[in-house]
């Protein structure tokens, strides 16, 4: 479980996160939703420790990592798998080398064991036969899958995904969503997904927090989202025609 309490973050005079408090549960898809510029990515980067909060705490199963020394923070990060918005695969490495990268650093496995594990992870995300290709030779959807395979390579306890559907067609988006949802349940990870894609929210949003201008205005799940009385969330939902139709029919 990841617990955030009274989190504040600002850049100069601009307050980006204002008093964020929320809990992210294990084994379900937790989502941070909101319009562009609402502070989603800053919240996500603060959670994983790439940005330091001005005040407030982020605890992973009761352990506050914000105050940890660099070496311990580094060690803790081995338990976090991250899928970046643009996949962030290493250009200098092939697909299988990308997946093996964390194993090279943090395991004493033999090369054959690492290859076996990397192939398992790639099979798990349905990437077969592209092991020797470089990231530049893959489609956006394939890159996301390889990114997920790399993120789960060391069996992380936490999976963090920043806009996993951005730049993907609707069909591939759904496949990626289902993949993340399936892996979250299978491995019992605490998954946080940052998105503004209404289809994803309706597909896999088990625990959703709506962020607006740096404040967490609403929290619920995909079933209760249409019953919201939050006007800003209402506007956000109605921007999507499918969701608007569902809302109007209710």
């Amino acid at each position, binding site marked *: 479980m990841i617990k955030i309490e009274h989190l504040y973050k600002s850049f100069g005079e601009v307050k980006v996160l204002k008093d964020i408090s929320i809990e992210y549960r294990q084994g379900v898809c937790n989502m941070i939703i909101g319009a562009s510029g609402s502070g989603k990515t800053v919240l996500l980067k603060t959670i994983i420790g790439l940005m330091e909060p001005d005040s407030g705490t982020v605890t992973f199963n009761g352990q506050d990592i914000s105050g940890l020394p660099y070496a311990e923070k580094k060690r803790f*990060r081995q338990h976090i798998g991250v899928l970046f918005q643009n996949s*962030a695969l290493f250009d200098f490495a092939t697909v299988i080398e990308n997946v093996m990268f964390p194993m090279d650093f943090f395991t004493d496995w033999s090369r054959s064991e690492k290859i076996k594990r990397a192939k398992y992870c790639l099979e798990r995300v349905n990437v077969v036969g592209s092991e020797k290709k470089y990231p530049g030779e893959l489609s956006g959807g394939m890159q996301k899958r390889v990114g997920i395979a790399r993120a789960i390579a060391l069996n992380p306890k936490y999976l963090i995904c920043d806009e996993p559907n951005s730049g993907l067609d609707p069909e591939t988006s759904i496949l990626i969503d289902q993949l993340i949802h399936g892996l979250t349940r299978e491995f019992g990870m605490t998954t946080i997904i940052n998105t503004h894609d209404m289809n994803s929210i309706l597909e896999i949003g088990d625990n959703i927090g709506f962020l607006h201008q740096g404040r967490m205005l609403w929290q619920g799940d995909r079933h209760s989202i249409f019953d919201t009385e939050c006007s800003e969330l209402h506007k956000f939902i109605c921007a999507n025609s499918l969701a608007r139709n569902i809302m109007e029919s209710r």
Partner: protein
Amino acid sequence: MLKKFFIETGRYFLFLRIVFKKPEKWKIFWKQFFIEADKLIVSSVVLVAVISLFIGGVLVIQTASNMSNPFLDRMLVGYMVRESLILEFCSTMVALILAGKIGSNIASELGSMRISDQIDAIEMMGVNSASFLVLPKVLSVTVLSPLLVLLSFYLGLLGGWIVVETTSIIPAAKYLSGLKYSFSEYYVFYSCFKMAFFSFMISTISAYKGFYAAGGALGVGRSSTKSIVISCILILMFDLIITQLMLY
């Protein structure tokens, strides 16, 4: 502006502190070391060789054309070409050329990795990204660049000899005896030391600029340009300081 200078200098040294941490795994470090040595040093051999050959030839012609006094021994042409090459050209001029080639390579590579979140991805895996990416570059360039000085020196002298052999500027025997005249090994050490120092500056400055690049593709271009300009200015400044300290 002065405040910005001090902030940047402080950040640069803090960056070096992170870079010079013990590598996570020595096996991976050595693998990266040789990859970087190939990418940065071995790939520069042709460029350095071509430039040195031509500059050696040009130096012979220029020196000979400025020594029309019949009382000056023609052997001095060889002597002066050798001294010019080893004291200044093979270290400082080659370093300035490498600042463009190696500096832009390092800054643009790291800058691209920064803006595409690859550095954050390494950091999120619990790996010291600065040490993993930068340390092999800095050490391979610093340790191996003196070999480029030696290569440049020999090829510069060879370029001069080719000109002497193919023209009638001075007799080849005079050129060769000039090359051997009053040779000081200390100058070779001085030149190699300068080159290692300059290479350290080039690699760390361009790595620093690339590592903290921001602002998309334009930002990467800006950081690459800045790293070359700063490296070139510092090379010339430290050339003066090191020369004063080591030769006088």
